[in-house]
């Protein structure tokens, strides 16, 4: 049997879909409500008192477009970390799946694809909410789901690789504090990174979330030539994380 069979990947994703049907209401509710709360707090709150606009963009729209990245990382890296750990250690789900004609590469690919697709939908919610807050719809926004998908695939791979590496679930606290939170804080979602020290700015360029934020703002306010490189970087990030996740999961699942 060949590698990466669509039937195997589809089968694993159908399991995720069957489970998602049992909890989608709660997840979707929080995904829609969170950006509204953030926009009300940061966007309207700050713009009314401290910041009117950033780089000629009303602050509420600046934050709204930036929050796409926040939605993507929180609906990809965290579910991948916790979901993978729970399915492996507590539910023994992977033991059952791997007893069927499914290999680890197909399992990881399917999990990443499912999380990526879901996060790309949830990632668009802040953009839609921001439109309600006055952002003009633009044709370039139609590419935002694609940017979200590439980024979410990468962070799903990151989360799966972490879950396959840690010994205990509470070690996720270190990962969240050391990687996830700093990544989203220096993504440029809430403030422009060109206000940061030069060294930090250089590091921020390696942050996939920053690239996503720039691409989303490109979709809303006009693309630049460099955006093609940004997207290529996100695709490379997803590919590298995919291979790392497969490798880590093979080490974890196959004795």
């Amino acid at each position: 049997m060949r590698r990466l069979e669509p039937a195997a990947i589809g089968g694993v994703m159908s399991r995720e879909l069957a489970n998602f049907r049992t909890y989608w209401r709660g997840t979707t509710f929080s995904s829609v409500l969170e950006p509204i709360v953030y926009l009300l707090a940061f966007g309207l709150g700050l713009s009314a008192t401290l910041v009117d606009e950033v780089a000629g963009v009303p602050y509420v729209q600046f934050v709204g477009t930036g929050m796409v990245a926040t939605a993507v990382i929180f609906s990809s890296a965290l579910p991948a970390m916790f979901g993978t750990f729970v399915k492996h250690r507590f539910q023994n789900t992977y033991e059952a799946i791997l007893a069927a004609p499914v290999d680890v590469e197909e399992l990881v690919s399917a999990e990443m694809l499912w999380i990526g697709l879901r996060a790309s939908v949830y990632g668009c919610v802040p953009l839609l909410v921001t439109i309600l807050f006055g952002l003009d719809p633009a044709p370039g926004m139609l590419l935002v789901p694609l940017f979200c998908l590439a980024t979410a695939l990468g962070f799903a791979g990151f989360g799966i690789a972490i879950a396959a590496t840690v010994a205990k679930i509470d070690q996720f606290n270190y990962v969240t504090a050391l990687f996830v939170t700093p990544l989203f804080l220096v993504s440029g979602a809430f403030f422009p990174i060109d206000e940061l020290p030069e060294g930090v700015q250089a590091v921020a360029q390696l942050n996939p979330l920053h690239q996503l934020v720039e691409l989303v703002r490109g979709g809303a306010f006009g693309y630049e030539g460099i955006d093609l490189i940004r997207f290529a970087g996100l695709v490379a990030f997803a590919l590298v994380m995919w291979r790392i996740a497969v490798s880590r999961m093979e080490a974890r699942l196959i004795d």
Partner: protein
Amino acid sequence: MAAMAAIELRGVVKRFGPITAVDGLDLDVPEGICLGLLGPNGAGKSTTMRLLTGQALPDAGELRALGHELPGDSKAARAEMGVVPQLDNLDVDVTVEDNLAVYARLYRVADVGAAVDRALDLARLRDRRRDAVDELSGGMRRRLLLARGLIHEPKLILLDEPTVGLDPQIRTELWTLIDALRSRGTTILMSTHYIEEAERLADEVAVMTHGKVISRGKPAELIVEHVGRETAEVYGPPDRLATVRADVEARGLAVRPAGPAIAIVGSERAGNGAIPEDAVVRAATLEDVFVMLTGEAAE
């Protein structure tokens, strides 16, 4: 003509660091039989199962399942075998029929709906098909787990401790289902540490300890070979049991502990006066074989 082997293991070794879980294991399972892999905890039964599903890679030896070389051709082998795990790993929030449908897809079943209906009938859960799994009783969940492993009508089934931790009523229910599969000629490899399970279901039993099969045969043959026809159980205070034990061992008879008693195996071979008059003499069982061979208490 000898039946073709559904499973062939030759000199299989599997180590976990300093521990050798499977130690030069040779095992053939002919098509159409139920082989019980009987052994205490840590004997290497579950590792053997994992080797057969490609979830553990051997350090040495050769493995074949349904004609496929393992682990290289493991995926093709897994497509033709069904696995019922020791631990319940059903998706508890998902409905009964969706649990089955997911695995029908994973096993590439052409008609998913028909396979789900067939599995529901087997598990006797047709009227609970739209209920979430966590609404089912323990017995229903076990039946569903078994039906899930059979969703693609496999030629070979691996049952890893299928009734471990279940109450006697549920265990009997499952035995009926497994016995029906055996009657249909499905090849079954069943690991267990329950003597009664092996006696009732297995055509042949392989006694495993420390990663090796140390004896194999039909249950009745194993009993005659290792412990004779009768066992005499002697009850009493520890001092008396120690005296009786020393006496019968001096006469060349084998003795094993049996809870509050001692069991003198092969008691029919004892000379006059060797067996205390108050001993309870019974037919020898597979439990006697298990304890004599492995040195472990039976369950």
